[in-house]
C-alpha cells in the first residue's frame, strides 16, 4: 500500500522542525557569553536560528524536489498545467510570514527592553539639550543630551568609566580612582557605565562576548552600560572604519572577581598626596 503524500509531508515537516530546534539548541555559533545581557541576546538568536533553519531547508528541499520531480524528460515538449494562481494559497503565504515577522518583531522588542535598550536617555530634560561642543564629564545625564543604546541605568552601585576612542586606540579613565589605562578592567556583578566619546572620527566599541556594540560619534556623548558575569579576558574591537589602522584598533576587557578588582584598583591607582 502506498503511504498517502499528506502523511509523508507531515512527517517531513515535523522532522524539519525538530532538526531546526536541534540546530538552534545544540549548534554553537556564538562566542562565549560573559555579560548579563548576553544570555538574553542568545535566547533571541536561538529563536531566529530555529525559524531560519526550518525556512531555508524547507525552501531548498522544495526547490530541489521540484527540479528532480518535474524535470522535463527527453523528447518531451509539452507544457505544464496552465495554473495561473490560487487566491487561498496567496492569502496563506501572505498571512503566515506576516504573523511570523510580527511575532519576531514583538519578541525582539521584548528582548531589547530586557537588555535596557528602550530606556529613554533624555529623562532629565531640564538642561539645554544639544550643547554638542561642550561635552562635560561630571554628570552627563544632567548636563547634555545623551546618546546610547543598550544598558540598564540608574543603579546606585555603578562603576563609571570614561572611554575616549581615537585613531587608533581606546583610553579608559576611572574618574573615581583617577586611573588611566589602555585596558578596561571591570568586576563581575557590578554595573559598569561607559561614557564614551571620540574626538577625531567615528569609532565603535564592540565586545563580542558581551554582545554589545556602540558607535562612538564625535560630538555625541554616548553612554553604554553592562554588567560582566564571567571572569576572563575578552577583546574590545573597533567596528567602524576609522582609518588605515582600523584593523589594529583593539584592546582588552579584563573581567575580575570583585576582590581581584579591588586589588587591581589599589595596585594601579596613582599615589595621592593626602
Amino acid at each position: 500500500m502506498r503511504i498517502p503524500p499528506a502523511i509523508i509531508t507531515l512527517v517531513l515537516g515535523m522532522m524539519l522542525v525538530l532538526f531546526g530546534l536541534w540546530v538552534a539548541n545544540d549548534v554553537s555559533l556564538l562566542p562565549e557569553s560573559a555579560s548579563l545581557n548576553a544570555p538574553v541576546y542568545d535566547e533571541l538568536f536561538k529563536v531566529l536560528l530555529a525559524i531560519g533553519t526550518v525556512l531555508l531547508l524547507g525552501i531548498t528541499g522544495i526547490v530541489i524536489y521540484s527540479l528532480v520531480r518535474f524535470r522535463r524528460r527527453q523528447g518531451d515538449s509539452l507544457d505544464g498545467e496552465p495554473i495561473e494562481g490560487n487566491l487561498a494559497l496567496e492569502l496563506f503565504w501572505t498571512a503566515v510570514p506576516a504573523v511570523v515577522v510580527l511575532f519576531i518583531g514583538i519578541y525582539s522588542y521584548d528582548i531589547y527592553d530586557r537588555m535596557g535598550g528602550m530606556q529613554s536617555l533624555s529623562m532629565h530634560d531640564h538642561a539645554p539639550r544639544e550643547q554638542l561642543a561642550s561635552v562635560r564629564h561630571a554628570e552627563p545625564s544632567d548636563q547634555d543630551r545623551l546618546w546610547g543604546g543598550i544598558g540598564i541605568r540608574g543603579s546606585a552601585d555603578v562603576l563609571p568609566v570614561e572611554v575616549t576612542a581615537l585613531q587608533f586606540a581606546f583610553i579608559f579613565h576611572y574618574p573615581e580612582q583617577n586611573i588611566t589605562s589602555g585596558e578596561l578592567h571591570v568586576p563581575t556583578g557590578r554595573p559598569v557605565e561607559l561614557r564614551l566619546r571620540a574626538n577625531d572620527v567615528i569609532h565603535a566599541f564592540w565586545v563580542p562576548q558581551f554582545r554589545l556594540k556602540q558607535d562612538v560619534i564625535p560630538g555625541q556623548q554616548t553612554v553604554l552600560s553592562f554588567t560582566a558575569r564571567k571572569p576572563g579576558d575578552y577583546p574590545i574591537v573597533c567596528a567602524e572604519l576609522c582609518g588605515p589602522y582600523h584593523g589594529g584598533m583593539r584592546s582588552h576587557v579584563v573581567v575580575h572577581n570583585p576582590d581581584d578588582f579591588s586589588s587591581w584598583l589599589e595596585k594601579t591607582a596613582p599615589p595621592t598626596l593626602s
Partner: protein
Amino acid sequence: MTASLTQTREPSPAPSLQPTGWLRYLSFSLDHKVIGLQYIVCGFLFYFVGGALAGVIRTELATPISDFVSREVYNQVLTLHGTVMIFLWIVPVVNGGFGNYLIPFYVGARDMAFPRLNAVAFWMIPPSGLLLISSYFVHGGAAQSGWTAYPPLSLTTPATGQILWILSVLLLGGSSIFGGINFIATIVKFRQPGLKLMMLPMYCWAMLGTSILVVLATPVLAGTLILLSLDIVAHTGFFNPGLGGNVVVYQHLFWFYSHPAVYIMVLPAFGLVSEILPVHARKPLFGYVTMVYSIMAIVILGLIVWAHHMFTSGTPPWMRLFFTIATAFIAVPTGIKFFNWIATLWQGRLALTTAMLFSCAFIIQFVFGGITGVALAQVPFDVHVHDTYFVVGHFHYIVYGGTVFVIFASIYHWYPKFTGRLLNEPLGQLHLLLTVIGFNLCFAPQHWLGLNGMPRRVAEYDPSFTVVNQISSVGALMMAISTLPFLINVIGSAFRGPRAGDNPWRALTPEWLTTSPPPVENWRGAPPLVKEPYGYGHSGNPIDLQTARGRDLWTSQP
C-alpha cells in the same frame, strides 16, 4: 500568438545614418538594443576590475597580519571594490543593460521614449568609471573611507581621491536618474494601443518600481555628496562636528538613497527571474497580480527602512522600533514573490537549462540572505553583528547570490536573442557548479566570522580566525576561476555556437516574436500585441496516446 505574421515580409534595405557593423557598439548609437549590450559588456569589464579588487582583499585576508598591500591601499581597494561593483556593474547591468534591451520589446515600441537621453546615460558611465579607477594613481590615492564615505573620516582622508570618488558617483547617479526617467516614460506612455498595464511582462513592473526608487532616492544622494564635497573643498561644516555639523545627518541622508539602492539592484533581478522561470518551466507565472502588488509594496517599504543601517549610531529608541518592524515587513512581499516562483516551478515541465539552474540557485541563496536580513532587522541582534563580517556575508548573499546569479541566468537565457547563437550548455553547467560552490564557500563562513568577533573593513584580524578566512579566500579563488568557462563560452559561441533560430526556448514574451538578433526597429511589420506573455499550457496539451486512459480523454474535453 502572432509569431508567424512577421516572417512573410522581406526586409527593405534602407540606408542608415548609424554605423551598422561591430563599430556601432563603440558609437553613440540610439538603438536601445545596442545601448543595452553596451551597458552589459561595459558592466562586465568593470566586474573584472571589481573582481580583481576583491581578489586583493581576499589575498590580504589569507593571513591575519597586514602583509600583502599597505593599510592605506587596502582601504582604497575596499572602497573601490564596493563602488565599482554597485555603481558600475550591478546597477547599470540589471537596469540599463537588460532594461534597455527588453523594455521596448515588452511595451511593443520600436525604441525607448528618449533615445538620445538613453545614449547620454550610457556614455556617462565609462568616463566616470575610468575617473574612479584612475583616482588610485593621483597623489594620496583613491578614496579610503569605504563606499559609505562617512564623515568625519571622509573629511580627513586624502582629499583628491575623495573628491574624484564623489564626482564619479555623482555622474553615475545622474546616468541612473536619466535611465529611470526614460524607463518610466517608456513603460507608462509607449505601450502600444490595447496593451494594458496588467498585461505587461513582470520585468516591466519591476523596472517601473525600480525607476520610481531611482528617481525619488538618487537625488538625495547627489545632494548629500555635494554637501560632503563642500565640506572637503570649501571647509563648510555640514557634517563636521568640529564646526558644529552633525555626522549622523549624513548617515540618514546617505542611507535614504543607499537602502533603496539595494532594491534598485534586486527588483530588476526579481523581474528577470519572473521572465526566465515560466519559459523554462513551461507554466504561466504563478500569481501575476500579487507579484505586481508585492513589487509596489517593496518600493514603498524600501523607502522607509533606511535607519536600520544606523541602529548603533545613537538613534532614539522609538525610531529603532519603527525601523525594525518596517524592515522585517519587507520579508512579506518578498516572501510572496519567492513562494510564487516556487509555485511556478511546481508541476511544470522543467528544462534543466543553465538559465533555469542559475535562477534556482538564486532562489535558495536569496532566501538565505533574506533570513539573515530579517535577523539583522532586529535591533538587539543587529547591535552585536552590525559592521561585522556577518553583514558582509548577508549582503553578498543578496547582491551576488541574488542579483549576480540572475545576471548570469539572464545571459544564458537571452544570449540566443542577442547573437542568434546558442551557448554551450555543458560549459554553462560547469560555470554554474564552480560559481555555486565558490560563492557559498566564500561567503557562508563569513557569517560565523562576524558572530564571533571579526569586524568588516579590516586588513588584520585575530589569528584564531585564520582558517575560516582561508576557506573564504579559497572560495573567492574558485569564483575567479568560474568566470573562465563563462568567458570561453560567451566569446567562443559568438563565432562558433550552433544557430539558435529565432525562438529556441519557444517563449511567448514579445522579444522572441522577431528575428534573433532583432532588426534595428525590432520588428519587420507591426509589433505583435501580446496580451498573455505567460500563456503556457493554454494551447491544450495533446494527449499522449501511449499512456492515456479513456477517462483522460473525457475529462480533457471542454
